[in-house]
């Protein structure tokens, strides 16, 4: 089939204009801005590596990076592992299962602002969560979830995990449903119990899905912002500020656009490194 040489170009044109204007050009521009001093009002002034140098000595930057890494270490394993069990739980053909799957997905489609309000209310000192924890004898004193510097980050991480469970559950569900039934039957004949079935059959066959989820949830953890903006506002005393929150504040509160861009470039480099590492470590095992 022949085609006019311009035909592919015409089809690609609208999309490429948008990607060019809103991704390629801004990427280059962000890198350029990271070498400048820019406050929107005056013209950008080239300062070389000054922004990076300053970032390196900025304790608030390191503090926010530290929170982001804690986020990554706590949230990613939870979002990689818990949804597997959820997916196993809902991967059965029993009455009403579609209803449960949908209910589990509701936190995913709900806007983060409403989720934030919901949890803010649960986290009150005399709120429902403290009440339930006391009822179960897990705590003696109410926890000051959002007003204490030692728990604010944990509180926001719990919300991120809670909101993400249903999303990753569906990804695993797709993976589970591509495992042929014969494998389970063969395992049963060999006398495997549920736990053995889970660890010996399901986990290895889910490796491709685990890779996807681990990349997606790491990228999401690096970029976490909304939960923090809505629930804690980064506080108390910066105890829940993450990297993107820091970038947002520098750029749009303080108008340090060049400086914030430098932090953005670092965010990008870490995200890139994480994706590559994920592919290398988990990809090797499944020859992806």
């Amino acid at each position, binding site marked *: *089939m022949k*085609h006019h040489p311009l*035909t*592919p170009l015409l*089809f*690609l044109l*609208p*999309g*490429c204009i*948008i*990607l060019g*204007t*809103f991704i390629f*050009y801004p*990427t280059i*521009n*962000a890198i350029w801005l990271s070498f400048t001093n820019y406050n929107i009002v005056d013209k950008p002034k080239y300062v070389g590596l000054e922004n990076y140098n300053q970032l390196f000595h900025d304790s608030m930057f390191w503090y926010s990076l530290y929170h982001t890494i804690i986020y990554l270490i706590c949230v990613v394993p939870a979002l990689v592992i818990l949804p597997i069990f959820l997916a196993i*739980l809902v*991967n*059965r*053909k*029993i009455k009403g299962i*579609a209803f*449960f*799957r*949908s*209910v*589990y997905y*509701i*936190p995913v*489609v*709900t*806007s983060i*602002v409403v989720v934030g*309000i*919901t*949890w803010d*209310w*649960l986290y009150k000192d*005399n709120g429902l969560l403290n*009440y339930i924890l006391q009822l179960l004898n897990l705590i003696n004193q109410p926890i000051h979830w959002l007003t204490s510097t030692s728990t604010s980050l944990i509180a926001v991480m719990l919300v991120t995990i*809670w909101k993400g469970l249903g999303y990753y559950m*569906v*990804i695993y569900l*797709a993976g589970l449903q591509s495992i042929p039934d014969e494998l*389970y*039957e063969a395992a049963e004949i060999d006398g*495997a119990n549920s736990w053995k*079935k889970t660890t010996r059959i399901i986990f290895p066959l889910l490796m491709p*899905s685990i890779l996807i989820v681990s990349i997606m949830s790491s*990228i999401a953890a690096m*970029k976490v912002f909304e939960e923090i903006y809505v629930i804690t506002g980064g506080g108390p005393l910066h105890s829940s500020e993450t990297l993107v929150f820091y970038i*947002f504040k520098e*750029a*749009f509160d303080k108008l340090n656009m060049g400086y914030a*861009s430098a932090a*953005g*470039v670092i*965010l*990008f480099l870490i995200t890139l490194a994480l994706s590559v590492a994920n592919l290398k470590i988990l990809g090797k095992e499944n020859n992806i």
Partner: protein
Amino acid sequence: MDASKFGAPKRNNYSYGKKMKLIFKNLLVYILLILVGIVLIGPFLWLLSTALKSGSENIFKYPPDLIPNHITLSNFSKVMEAFPFWRYLFNSTVVSIFTVILNTLFCSLAAYPLARINFKGRNIVFLLIISTMIIPFQLLMIPIYILAINLGLQNTYAGMILPHITTAFGIFIIRQGMITIPFELDESAFMDGANRFQIWWRIILPLTKPSIVTLAIFTFVSSWDDFLWPLIITNDQNMYTLPLGVNMLMGTFSSDWRLISAGAIISVIPIIIVFVLLQKYFVNGLKGAIKG
């Protein structure tokens, strides 16, 4: 072990003992399903319960009352008076609908040559497009903001819509859908004198419908729930989308949690309706997207 753990039982000739075991097991499964359900939906029900409590009831009571003593809808009507819900709903609808239409259109246009025309440099173009997936929007938001200000897009619908109307994810999903269609279809249409645009519109697009629906739903949800970009590009409350409007509730009603809860509940009704109507596409679409 029986097969019920991973699927419906295939045989009916269970012994009595086995049957009991199966019933017990299913009961256990339902209890687990309900417990998880409470964890995932309970927080919303608690918010709803708070929104239904009347002013005479102490919402900060400890231990809390799970169910309101007197159910009242007055908080909802009060919040509707103070909070321009319809305005925000209208803004959210305009932004989401245009984003969905343009994104699915541009992505399916761009996906077509990438899937079905053998042109020079195709792989490079595809790779370039896919590589944009790893660039975080949080890096781009500063230059896009500056660009949007210079183009006069602050506080406009266009400003909220334009950056999101072509995504690498969308092109990828639709290309995956298009690749599986047999190439004979294009060729026979070509023989009949159809041009490339007609082939795309009349033959390929209808056959790519599942991928398009998936992309449309994903785009709708992410656009409807988007918070960061509208927060940056609007400062005029008349242009606020629902998430921004709801975020204001906390400030407006400071500590009147009955009204905050009522406002939050009202704001999720539209997306819950869409979700209930299209729920099979949500779950199946995501599965399809991953498999593809």
